[in-house]
């Protein structure tokens, strides 16, 4: 492969890359465009790309039929709450694993990650019973805990890999200078760990936001997040594509916007730290 990049070649690659990018993005783009069409225009053949009468009608109808803000608020609380709780629990654990590793650290990590591979249905019913017992069914608090638990292994693993990149010599140097444990944590570790923590937070937020298996099964009305909102539009509205698109757009918009403004963290987070 000729790595000596000629300008022509570079332009060609860029064009190809963007063609692929556009192809992948197209279904999302099409959904967003369709949400502004009337139902008739949405199913027009040949399809109308841009020259239709832009309308906000679908959004008004969707909002009227189901209270979007309530679902959105639930999603924010569930994703935000479980992420915050997870980080609070995971940071000390990952910190100790990265800086004071014992013989078992690798085993524990691997074992924890393997729980992520287990099918969730295996623990669905016990958790369901526990929820009934504790009165947590259809409550935000219960779901925050469950979502935190299922993503915890990933949070710990990611934080661990980020923390390990922090050179231990810096800590030794700080200790030489007589830094206390508190100072060490506050002035040295935290600033160096922030990029890693930010990516982890974003990843976990997105995972929790999209989690459908648990949210669909453990909520009914009160705690139902956007996944439930969008699922409720799936079957009975099967043929109302413009409204379905409006609902989909409303459900994905927060993630698309959040991702757009934090591209570096998004790439780092979604690839689980594989892309620096």
């Amino acid at each position, binding site marked *: 492969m000729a790595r000596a990049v000629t300008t022509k070649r570079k332009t060609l690659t860029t064009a190809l890359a963007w063609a692929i990018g556009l192809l992948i993005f197209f279904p999302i783009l099409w959904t967003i465009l369709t949400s502004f069409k009337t139902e008739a225009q949405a199913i027009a053949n040949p399809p109308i790309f841009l020259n239709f009468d832009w309308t906000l009608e679908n959004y008004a109808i969707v909002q009227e039929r189901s209270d979007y803000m309530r679902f959105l608020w639930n999603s924010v609380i569930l994703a935000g709450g479980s992420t915050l709780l997870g980080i609070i629990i995971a940071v000390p654990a990952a910190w100790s694993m990265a800086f*004071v590793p014992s013989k078992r650290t690798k*085993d524990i990590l691997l074992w924890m990650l393997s729980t992520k591979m*287990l099918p969730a249905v295996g623990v669905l019913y016990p958790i369901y019973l526990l929820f009934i017992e504790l009165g947590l069914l259809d409550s935000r608090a219960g779901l925050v805990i469950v979502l935190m638990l299922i993503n915890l292994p990933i949070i710990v693993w990611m934080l661990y890999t980020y923390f*390990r990149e922090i050179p231990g010599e810096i800590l030794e140097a700080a200790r030489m200078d007589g830094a206390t444990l508190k100072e060490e944590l506050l002035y040295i570790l935290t600033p160096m760990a922030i990029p890693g923590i930010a990516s982890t937070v974003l990843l976990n937020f*997105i995972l929790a936001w999209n989690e459908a298996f648990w949210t*669909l099964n453990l909520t009914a009305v009160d705690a139902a997040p956007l996944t439930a909102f969008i699922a409720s539009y799936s079957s009975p509205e099967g043929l109302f594509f413009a409204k379905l698109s409006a609902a989909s757009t409303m*459900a994905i918009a927060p993630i698309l916007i959040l991702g757009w403004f934090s591209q570096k963290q998004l790439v780092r987070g979604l690839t689980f730290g594989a*892309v620096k």
Partner: protein
Amino acid sequence: MSSAEHAPAGPDKRPIRLFRNLWSKIAAIPMILVSVGIFVGGTIWTIVYSFTDSGLLPRLNWVGLEQYERLWSTRRWLVSIENLAVFGIASLILTFALGFLLAALLDRKIRFEDTFRTILLYPFALSFIVTGLVWQWILNPEFGVQSIVRGLGFESFTFDPLYDSSKVMIGLLIAGLWQGTGLIMVILLAGLRGIDEDIWKASRVDGIPAWKTYVVIIIPMLKPVFITALVLVTSGIVKLYDLVVAMTSGGPGISSEVPAKFVYDTLFTRQNLGQGFAASTMMLVTVAIILIPWALLQFRGKKND
């Protein structure tokens, strides 16, 4: 990943180290307890009750392996297993083949690269529910791809996988690939970028063809990256549930049922707990069979470092 003994180990630091170790253990304990309690406890509970005749409510009436015998003679379960196997193998092969091909093709600096990567990752950032709905529509024979191609004059063009029980898994596969390929490609691309320029130069000097350089040198070098990607893809496959619920609800008929959905329906809709527990135990066993050799391999690799 090489060993990471960052901890200072001077003899004069002994007491401090002990103290730090103690704190670090205290820090790690809540998390480990929680994981043990929920995952192991819940899983054991499920396995135990799979040997009972629990119906609507969990009861400890032992029936031995009866639930398992019944499970394996249920057609819907067999279809589910087969579907998951087909989907799993096909999506593993295709995601990696496509992802690697695209990554190798684009192994150069691209303008606006961050934006490009973000766009490729967008599908992965969406809920399976949304993916399912969007693709259900694209693959709808009356409004989606089929009708558009027919509109262009190809009257006999047929592509309606979601309404054809022999092709419905292809429809699910397309949506799954759309969601996952970008992720794998971005990860592999990052791996390829990390490879030293000199390796390419050397192989060119020696006159080794590019494809051979990839197979013999580059891919083995990317092993850690491939493992990360593999873990991500596999855990996605095991979870296959939301996509099916949103796209086909298991239909037409039972042709796109998957194990997770079988378990869920058996537990909550058909209220046959014992049967559902037996099915989820089978899923656990299957995952364990795949996971244990991999874990052992990992451990042995680490010990050799």
